[in-house]
């Protein structure tokens, strides 16, 4: 069984994560689509922290003897997913950045040509 203090600690940590993500969204520093995975992470960790028998059952099902380790593994897994998601986001952004730079360079060139030939 999970030690009681571990459950409380994990639940409080998950709640802090949820509150921070909410505040970042509210103040427009975090867009919803990038917040959803964090919210899911916080919710799952919170549920497993307070629902102690579910955590025990889940740990047992995958062969982890010490339930708090299962919580740790799960949190790590979510962080991996978030990181992978960010990798895809960064890839998209860098591609779009290339397109923007190319379009801007061509636009500047056309503007200079237009200025050189005012007629």
């Amino acid at each position, binding site marked *: 069984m999970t030690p009681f203090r571990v459950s409380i600690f994990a639940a409080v940590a998950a709640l802090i994560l949820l509150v921070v993500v909410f505040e970042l969204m*509210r103040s427009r520093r975090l867009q*919803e*689509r990038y*917040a959803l995975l964090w919210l899911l992470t916080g919710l799952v960790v919170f549920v497993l922290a307070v629902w102690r028998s579910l955590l025990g059952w889940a740990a047992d099902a995958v062969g982890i003897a010490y339930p708090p380790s299962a919580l740790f593994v799960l949190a790590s897994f979510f962080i991996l997913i978030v990181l992978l998601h960010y990798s895809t986001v960064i890839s998209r952004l860098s591609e*779009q950045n290339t397109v923007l730079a190319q379009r801007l360079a061509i636009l500047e060139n056309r503007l200079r040509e237009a200025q050189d030939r005012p007629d």
Partner: protein
Amino acid sequence: MIGTRSERVSLTSLRRLAIVPALNEAGSIQSVIREIRAQDPDFEILVVDDGSTDGTAGLAEAAGAWVVRLPFNLGIGGAVQTGLQYARDHDFGIAVQIDADGQHDPTELPKLLAPLLAGEADVVVGSRFLGERNYKAPFLRRVGIRVFAAIISAVVGQPLTDTSSSFRAFGRRAIAYFSRDYPHGFVESVEATVIAARCGLRLTEVPVVMRQRLMGQSSLTLPISIYYSIKVLVAVFVGIFRRSAYELKEE
């Protein structure tokens, strides 16, 4: 010379723009442009090409519309906001959003414009659920629309029947605000409704009849619908606690 000075001013304030966001709608874009022009020749038509690869932009230009080509796909929210920025920069008093797939009937435009022209609203939404009920959609879609309408009505404190309709008209104040702060991504109209209410824009619904799509299928599959439903609900919830990004300037 056209009329007196005051007449010209009022004509200017009524300049109207039809914003047609389009992503690969080569099959219907030209007939949509022709229909808008046939209904109201005063409309200038702006097609915002959101990264089409099927020649939509060229067809739109050939049909006589202004075309803005986005360098890559921004999603419907980003495309509509581009149109609203165009409306702001070129001093249009009215901007109407019309889908490029032909499901919005331009003969409904006068109904959509009436509350704006009367100065009674800043945003007019064409609702599929007011008045005549002829809207045909899959059962789940209809239920989804109803559930959102109930939630959003409670949030904004005004009874609304159709918060996901994209057949909408924007007055000058709405153009000014939304060109700076508009939700991105898909199904943005639900969030836009909440933003409108929060920043003091007056919202009205009018009944409109929508047609079946001329071409293509709805891009919504069930998992994507569920994802966007959750995203929009989170956005609406957070929006309740959010202040307006900008103060509306009174004219």
